[in-house]
């Protein structure tokens, strides 16, 4: 997701949002074992990812936000109501309504175990009844339209 960090600025920031069933306790235990200390944002813990110079934050057990420190820092703000969220962006919400009426559906899975792996299947509606089949090794995260 790409967004402007300030209303008066053209500077853009990018955050990635991964959804799935994460083993949060095991992952945070691994961070502690590596002596990585989180930055606390209210009740949220933002952990550094040493290899990539990015940071990551589990905003809930099934949602991980990752990206540059400045970008990820504002994600909990939006989730906690301390900054405007996408839900307050009328043009974007209108655009999403129009997408909802299109005859497309998609499923995707992401795997961060060894690098980054993304599998995306899109049903275009061009045939009668194709079946979507996310890879069994992935954690499927439906984004039905």
């Amino acid at each position: 997701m790409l967004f402007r960090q300030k209303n008066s600025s053209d500077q853009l920031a990018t955050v990635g949002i991964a959804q799935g069933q994460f083993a949060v306790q095991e992952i945070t235990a691994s961070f502690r074992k590596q002596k990585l200390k989180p930055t606390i944002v209210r009740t949220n813990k933002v952990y550094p990812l040493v290899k990539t110079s990015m940071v990551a934050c589990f905003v809930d057990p099934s949602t991980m936000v990752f990206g540059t420190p400045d970008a990820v820092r504002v994600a909990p703000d939006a989730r906690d109501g301390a900054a405007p969220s996408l839900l307050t962006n009328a043009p974007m919400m209108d655009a999403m309504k129009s997408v909802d009426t299109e005859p497309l559906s998609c499923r995707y899975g992401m795997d961060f175990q060894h690098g980054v792996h993304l599998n995306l299947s899109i049903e275009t509606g061009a045939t009668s009844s194709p079946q979507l089949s996310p890879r069994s090794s992935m954690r499927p995260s439906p984004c039905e339209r």
Partner: protein
Amino acid sequence: MTGPDAEKQALAATTVHSNLGNLEIQFATSDDEFASLLKSSLFQSVLA
């Protein structure tokens, strides 16, 4: 084709297949290359 290495590697690591009405896109890369890709002008322009 011109462009930074991160963008070329991303395109090379992406495969697209279609089967009747099902379009499948697959992408795989390393942690370091993914971090570079997030900062690339190609990634920024696609999302803008």
